[in-house]
């Protein structure tokens, strides 16, 4: 193929060469697709793809006019070879549907294939099916159809679909992920709210209605009371203290114990949500982190192929997106250049030290803030607004610290992705430690009805956060947009995804803490999220500009889910640790138990009646046993990690093997082509280097175009040929040892024992002679 002489610059030449290259490519690919490694049915998907590749290649050979029918024929012929697809049962029908779905072809061809397949299947089914079997098939089909239609219905009713899509079109998919996260949290909160309201709030209100409890102190609702949750609200359904402990006096034959209901509703709903979140986080992690790691980093390739966000719709966003991509490419090129400059180990050490120092400083700041908060809490004067002051302090701290951390992290030497994760981690640490501190303070204070006080604290935090998110932040954004419109030199307001996501996570952590002690708080938070969605949407659409930096949305979303899961875990841990030891006898639904955990042990399991079970449980919950289990778990985690690292290095080795094999394959295919064209492949000798190899010289000088393989022109052998080869085919066959031996014996033109004049066309004789010669040595 290579020595066809075409003028490379002419139009026709290009076309001819392209079609020739194409057909040679196609022929080669067709040959490759018949190789045994492509025939293995180890995966039907792979098999189908190989078939589809083959079909795609065959497509080039067919006409465009009636190709649909013919292509369908080819595909059906392939599918008929698979026995599992051709049976007349619901399983095979489902398999056929899957196969059709995964076929990368147009709808016309798919329809033809389906028609032909069903015709072929009905031809093949030999026996008539009995009545009962047909009935069974029909019912299973009907159920499947019903399920599909229900799923269709569910998918077509998507909450806020169009709004999020508009935002995505204007700002890119990263901002879209924030709104999807918001939507997911909203749905989770609505679920939580429904459960809590149904099982806890409604029975309590029925009880209230029946027993006509009125709060002893009826104050008028003052605004300050509304904010701080005291006064009238204190003895309402909002807080823990109001809930009855014992049976609900609502009439009716069944008894409904409030303490059981309260405890187990909270516990079970939190457990269910925890499991769902864990599952989602793990799934997201597996998809986004593990799939992307291991082996060589594909920075440039993934940027070129997955860089353009096809969801971008507006012209402004597209221009910004293109500019962002341009900047990213430049950054990558710079990094590549920098990597080639080796950094001294001193420089690296310096960077590590600076990072460590700043991290320590930040941790110290966090601890200092917590200490300050503790002091503030201990300083409880009975001033009316002390508690409000505490809440306002906490809210300000939580709102302003992320910005401080953001500017701090710029002083350090992280790459941008790691800097983001570091900021997220630090802010999360601050939020959680604040909440846990508050919880422990209230739990250890010997106040009357500390649960209600803590519930009030959470209520105040939610209210303040709502005020900040719904009023203060949008006002700031609109203000900045206004200033930007006046003076284009200032930086435009961009949607700060990290800050907003952190606010959501903090909010959710407050909800987790608060739901145990203030059941209706969830309803308030659900309403707040609903409002937040619309406010953020308006704010973003009107005030913000599309971001310059192109975000990696998928991996960040994993981190966000992980933080939410961790918050829930910390909450459960903190509350569980308190409830294990302490009692809650001053108010609330769990008054009758000396320790809260006795709801389970006494109320449910009646352990005092089973001494052996209670002894066993007592043993299992001892610290030594738990410590042992934890040690075992950590060893297991370490083992799995070691295995993962080993497998990653194995993947590396295998990848190198694959590339070498591919090179081998190319070489062999090329050799086959050459051999089939009548050119012999000359095995390269060691002392002949350079691009102008033996093969090339041989082709140029010895092989005349009209020669077929067996006739050499000895007069054209140049002197660089030390060897006088009898037949190059021989050396192709034998290994280098023999080639070397035979080379060393040759003497030049006058060597009569290997006179090539005798070696007409009989290769075998040559072989005999050569072997005979060698045996003489």
């Amino acid at each position, binding site marked *: 193929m290579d020595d066809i002489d075409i003028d490379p610059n002419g139009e026709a030449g290009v076309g001819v060469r392209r079609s020739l290259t194409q057909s040679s490519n196609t022929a080669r690919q067709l040959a490759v697709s018949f190789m045994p490694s492509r025939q293995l049915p180890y995966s039907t998907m792979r098999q189908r793809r190989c078939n589809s590749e083959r079909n*795609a290649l065959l497509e080039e050979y067919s006409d465009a006019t009636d190709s649909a029918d013919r292509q369908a024929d080819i595909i059906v012929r392939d599918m008929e070879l698979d026995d599992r697809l051709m049976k007349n049962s619901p399983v095979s029908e489902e398999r056929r549907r899957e196969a059709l779905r995964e076929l*990368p072809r147009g709808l016309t061809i798919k329809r033809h294939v389906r028609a032909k397949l069903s015709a072929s299947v009905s031809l093949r089914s030999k026996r008539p099916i009995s009545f009962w079997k047909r009935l069974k098939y029909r019912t299973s089909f009907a159920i499947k159809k019903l399920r599909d239609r229900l799923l269709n219905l569910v998918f077509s009713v998507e909450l806020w679909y169009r709004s999020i899509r508009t935002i995505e079109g204007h700002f890119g*998919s990263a901002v879209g992920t924030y709104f999807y996260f918001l939507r997911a949290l909203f749905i989770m909160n609505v679920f939580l709210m429904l459960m809590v309201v149904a099982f806890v709030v409604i029975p309590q209100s029925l009880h209230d209605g029946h027993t006509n409890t009125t709060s002893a102190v009826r104050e008028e609702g003052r605004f300050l009371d509304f904010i701080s949750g005291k006064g009238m609200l204190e003895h309402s359904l909002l807080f823990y203290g109001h809930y009855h402990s014992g049976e609900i006096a609502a009439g009716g034959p069944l008894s409904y114990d409030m303490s059981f209901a309260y405890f187990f509703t909270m516990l079970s709903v939190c457990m269910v949500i925890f499991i769902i979140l864990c599952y989602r986080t793990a799934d997201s992690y597996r998809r986004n982190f593990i799939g992307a790691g291991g082996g060589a980093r594909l920075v440039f390739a*993934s940027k070129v192929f997955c860089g353009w966000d096809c969801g971008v719709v507006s012209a402004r966003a597209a221009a910004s997106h293109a500019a962002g991509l341009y900047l990213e490419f430049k950054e990558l090129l710079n990094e590549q250049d920098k990597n080639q400059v080796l950094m001294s180990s001193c420089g690296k050490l310096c960077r590590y030290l600076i990072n460590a120092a700043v991290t320590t400083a930040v941790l110290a700041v966090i601890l200092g803030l917590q200490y300050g908060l503790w002091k503030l809490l201990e300083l409880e004067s009975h001033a009316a607004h002390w508690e409000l002051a505490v809440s306002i302090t906490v809210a300000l701290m939580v709102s302003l610290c992320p910005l401080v951390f953001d500017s701090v992290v710029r002083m350090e030497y992280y790459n941008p992705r790691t800097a983001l994760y570091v900021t997220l981690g630090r802010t999360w640490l601050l939020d959680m430690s604040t909440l846990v501190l508050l919880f422990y303070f209230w739990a250890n204070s010997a106040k009357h009805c500390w649960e209600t006080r803590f519930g009030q604290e959470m209520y105040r935090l939610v209210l303040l956060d709502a005020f900040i998110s719904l009023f203060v932040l949008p006002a700031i954004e609109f203000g900045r947009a206004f200033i930007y419109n006046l003076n284009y030199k200032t930086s435009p307001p961009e949607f700060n995804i990290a800050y907003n996501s952190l606010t959501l996570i903090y909010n959710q952590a407050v909800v987790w803490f608060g739901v145990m002690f203030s059941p209706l708080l969830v309803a308030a938070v659900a309403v707040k999220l609903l409002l937040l969605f619309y406010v953020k949407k308006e704010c973003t659409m009107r005030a913000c500009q599309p971001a310059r930096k192109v975000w990696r949305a998928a991996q960040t979303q994993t981190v966000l889910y992980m933080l939410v899961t961790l918050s829930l875990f910390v909450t459960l841990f903190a509350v569980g640790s308190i409830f294990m030891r302490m009692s809650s006898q001053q108010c609330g639904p769990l008054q009758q138990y000396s320790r809260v955990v006795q709801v389970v042990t006494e109320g449910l399991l009646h352990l005092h009646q089973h001494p052996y079970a209670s002894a066993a449980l007592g043993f299992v919950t001892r610290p030594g046993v738990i410590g042992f289990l934890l040690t075992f778990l950590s060893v297991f985690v370490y083992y799995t990690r070691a295995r993962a690292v080993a497998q990653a290095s194995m993947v590396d080795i295998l990848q190198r093997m694959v590339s070498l094999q591919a090179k081998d394959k190319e070489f062999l295919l090329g050799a086959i082509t050459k051999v089939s064209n009548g050119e012999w492949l000359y095995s390269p000798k060691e002392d002949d280097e350079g691009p102008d190899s033996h093969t090339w010289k041989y082709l140029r000088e010895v092989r005349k175009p009209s020669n077929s393989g067996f006739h050499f022109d000895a007069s054209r052998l140049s002197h660089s040929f030390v060897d006088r080869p009898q037949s190059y085919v021989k050396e192709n066959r034998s290994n280098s040892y023999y080639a070397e031996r035979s080379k060393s014996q040759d003497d030049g033109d006058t060597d009569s024992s290997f006179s090539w004049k005798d070696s007409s066309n009989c290769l075998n004789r040559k072989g005999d002679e050569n072997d005979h010669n060698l045996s003489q040595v």
Partner: protein
Amino acid sequence: MYQVSCVILIILCHTEALNPELCQAKPREKHCLIEWMARHRWPHTIRVFKRFREVNPELVPKRMTENQAHTIAVPVEEIEKLPELKENPFKRRICQVFSHDGSGNLTFEDFLDMMSVFSEAAPRDIKAWYAFRIYDLDDDMYIGREDLLEATRLLTKGELHPQERDDIVASVLDEADVDGDGRLSFMDFEHVVVRAPDFLSTFHIRV
């Protein structure tokens, strides 16, 4: 509100699917296009049809028979004006890949194909295959150097220096070309795409 009407439309459409006028099909085999799509769990057919009709309302009738679904072709210049495709640098190539004759003029079936491949429900393998064909600008089943150069030029709207583009293309081939032949076959491309977590979210057009 819109979702409710959509649901009602889908239900209506399902009942209409049994309407022989619309189907023009033998009742036993149920070739109806819309029913087939609904069976394959893709609820947005109505939306897609509305979009398609918006491109050229004169050419596309309000109720399409099955025959018309693969004969009436909207020219490529008008398809490119759709908001979903207008800003996409590869819009011409996308239309060419999905059209039945390679010219870029799409029938409704081609359009439905395109939207289904770009939707969320499409399997990753199908998306990878079509993405490969889209990036393979000269249609020789390999993504070669020229294809990559052109792709980088389109992505940044012509901003990059030719030298920088050469560097980028060299790096891409360095990273992704497993068998070392200087161009990417479908296997190489799929290898890249499977490991990139963003592929599914970026190769996604919402109708």
